[in-house]
């Protein structure tokens, strides 16, 4: 096992993951520091989402190691990884994946309620985040009644409401038009920076990747760090 870069929050080394005959990850490496925004880029089917799922402890890799804050993720039980995701990680998916039957404020409050926060406190905190993401007027609406961009901002609020140290965003603007996408990215990165949350951002759009501090390119399951020329 290699040592983690000094001060890194999350480090992955030699990750391998296969789905049947397809090698989604084939020795991928990754690291991120607190407050850093790293974009994982690559063509479709290159393994970027699989890398994100492995880093977030959603999917266990076949081999390799993932260290979060000094703790090895790959040897953790499913229950402990779930607890970690509840308390320290946040997620934004391409289509929001908001629960259609809950109102927007209930959706944002959901991660807090999963952590055991009372409904009242959870919804109060949720409303604060919805204000920051400029969607507080949608609080009583259901996801089916809001636009794609609005829904995605609700999803960002939901990802940030627990005050995560690490935010995973999988193609967060993939389903949005460019102006809506840019607004979502602005709000997401602003909010992350204000809370010093690190962001792992999976995208194939350079425009979106431009919001990151650093880019990692994944191709054929292997990752390559790209230093950004500022």
């Amino acid at each position, binding site marked *: 096992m290699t040592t983690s870069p000094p001060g890194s929050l999350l480090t992955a080394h030699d990750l391998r993951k296969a789905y049947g005959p397809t090698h989604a990850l084939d020795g991928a490496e990754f690291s991120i520091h607190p407050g850093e925004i790293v974009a994982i880029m690559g063509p479709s089917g290159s393994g970027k*989402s699989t890398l994100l*799922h492995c880093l977030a402890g*959603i999917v266990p890799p076949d081999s390799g190691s993932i260290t979060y804050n000094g703790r090895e993720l790959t040897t953790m039980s499913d229950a402990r990884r*779930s607890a970690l995701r509840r308390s320290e990680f946040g997620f934004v998916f391409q289509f929001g994946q908001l629960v259609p*039957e809950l109102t927007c404020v209930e959706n944002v409050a*959901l991660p807090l309620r*999963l952590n055991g926060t009372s409904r009242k406190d959870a919804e109060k905190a949720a409303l604060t985040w919805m204000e920051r993401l400029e969607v507080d007027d949608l609080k009583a609406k259901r996801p089916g009644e809001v636009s794609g961009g609005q829904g995605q901002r609700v999803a960002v609020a939901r990802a940030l409401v627990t005050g995560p140290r690490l935010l995973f965003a999988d193609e967060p603007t993939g389903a949005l038009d460019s102006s809506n996408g840019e607004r979502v990215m602005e709000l997401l990165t602003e909010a992350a920076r204000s809370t010093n949350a690190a962001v792992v951002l999976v995208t194939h759009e350079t425009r979106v990747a431009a919001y990151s501090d650093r880019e990692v390119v994944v191709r054929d399951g292997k990752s390559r760090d790209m230093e950004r020329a500022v």
Partner: protein
Amino acid sequence: MSPRQWAKDLALGARFAVSGGREGWVRMTLTAVGVGLGVALLLLCTALPNVFAARAKVEDARFDYAYSAKTPPKADNTFLIAATDTTWHDDDIRGRLVEPEGERAPLPPGVGSFPGKGEMVVSPALRDLLASDDAELLRQRLPYTITGTIGESGLIGSHELAYYAGASGLKLTDVSPVHRLTEYGKPDAKPEKTDPVLLLMVLVVFVVLLTPVAVFIAAAVRFGGERRDRRLAALRLVGSDSHMTRRIAAGEALAGAVLGLVVGTGFFLLGRQTLGSTEVLGVSVWPGYLDPSPTLAALVAVAVPVAAVLVTLLAMRGVVVEPLGVVRAARQRRRRLWWRLLPPLAGLAMLYPMIGKGRGNGDFNKYLVTGGVLLLLIGITALLPWVVDAVVVRLGKGALSWQLAVRRLQLSSGTAARMVNGIAVAVAGAIALQMLFTGTQSQYTKATGEDPARVQMQVEFSDRKPLSGVEREFTGAKGVRAAVNLANLQYGDARRDPENSNGLTVGDCTALRELATLPSCKDGDVFVTRTRSHYGTPSNADEIALVKPGRRLYIDPSYGGDTTERGIEALWTVPANVRVVEARKDSLQNYNGLLVTPAALPAKAAPALFSEGVYVRLDPSVPDSREYARNVAARIDPLAGTYSWSATQENEKYTSIRTGLYVGSAFVLALIGASLLVSQLEQLRERRKLLSALVAFGARRRTLSLSVLWQTALPVGLGLLLATTVGVTLGSVLLKMTRTPVAMDWASVLTMTGVGAAVVAVVTLLSLPPLLRMMRPEGLRTE
């Protein structure tokens, strides 16, 4: 809109249904299997009239009982036949001893040639039974060589146990069960008039069992509906308007329904063969009996596809399909109660004119009954969405799993209600029927006066057997604890045509104690029983006066002058020790008269003493004790009848209808369970990605499983509550129609709702493993 455009759109939908790749085929298969199951059940119902007719035809064709008191003279076309029906464990065996008296004697239906003495022809089921290892006692009872098989034309079902055994020397007497006949078959076979209340029960059973099937078919054509809606969105994108989209959706459903018809016919044909080789609750049929009535089958073939199209069009009203791949539920209109109340109220209105009619005023109007019951039950499907809606909207906030479930129900209460419709309709119907059955049970069950704790079996001989010896044969047999043997004869005050005469019962002290309370008894004692009227006053003073000590009486006097009924005319002097005793209220005989022990009679009376039957007390600890006793009876007299005692006896038709209801209910519940499971799995599949996303957030599987459980439990609870209300209402109305006092049978209500809840619980349990699989985070993968 031209019919041509309609047809074109429907055809396009049908084409989409079969060309949708793997997903499309899965959906089509689910729909076809679901509709197919319903269609198979409907076809089975359309075949039932034929089943009854075919069985009755065989019963009539093999009828071999002489109604007429006039026996034809022996001729070359006559035969003697005697019923020797018996029972093996709980299965009835139809048996006949047959003796042709001439060359032209007709053969029984299904029999190729007369069996000779010591031979028998048997049904295939009896042949198998006799060949089995555990039928040794039956082989002893039927000690004949099997020489042939009874064909289908002589049997009412593939599993009927029957035999014809050859006999010689059958005696045709006034008391024997032997008949001389020239042909088989019931003369002037007319359909028996059935009690109007039983007809009402049959009608209600049919409606109650078929309504859930219809509801099930309606649900089956909507399997995979959400996925289909997404496909339709793509069609909107390429220019299909909203009306066209709906017609295309209807076309898809039509294709599923038509394929369902084909699959259902296949299921039916398979089931027909299977049912032909199985027995359900003691009833078996031949596959050939299960021929659907052409008119009813045609009705099914038309009604199912039409219903599929209508249901789809109705369902699509609440869905807005937009071109950008997004399907949004149209803002739910507030569900209105007034029109939902119309079907059940109309149903009640149709049944109302028949209230108080009872069984004495002819048959119930079958159209009004069918329509009324149908509307009441269909009313549940109209009311349930409103009830679920009205309740869930008021439900408070609770734990997260509760909140997720309640919110889901608030968003799409229709889907939840649809899932529960079938079970609610079935439970409501079952409650109503159970109330009707329980309420009218006393009218169709009569007390026999028999006490099965005292005597378990009664044997009746075909002719007179000597009193002594018969009893010993039984008491010496395995499994028999005691046998009571009594002889009954007459005595009078004159040798011939006495002015006063009464009955006399002869038996040992043990036997006589079964009839009266005897203070003490020894052979040679005589007792006269005091009978009492309904009010407890003595009612046989004349009889007691006749048997004064020292009086000369005649046992077995003659009647009818010199020509007929010549008795033994044995002179008997009433002994001095004759005592008056009280008859037992639970005496084995209705009439006891004079009770005499054998030694008290003159020797001349001995030839008049014969046994007509024996009461047998069995040892319950000996397995097959009944079979041992039956074998003794058959050995003493092959024509003897054996009857098990029971406290009550149910009307056979009533029992058949109830058996039919149980068989039908089992099929319907299995069908509904299958439908529920498919709907549940489909819904879970639709939410797979969302469930995975929630797991990615760290949601506990327990929370999500509980939320799914609440989502099922809430509508099921409400559905069962509504079902109970409608079921009790319908049951009360049916009881009032039959003029039976309305009494609530809460045990059956709880049983029926419990069965409904159990079906749902089983379905939920079965859907848990796939649910847990779907909650894996891998569900987030799209490639």
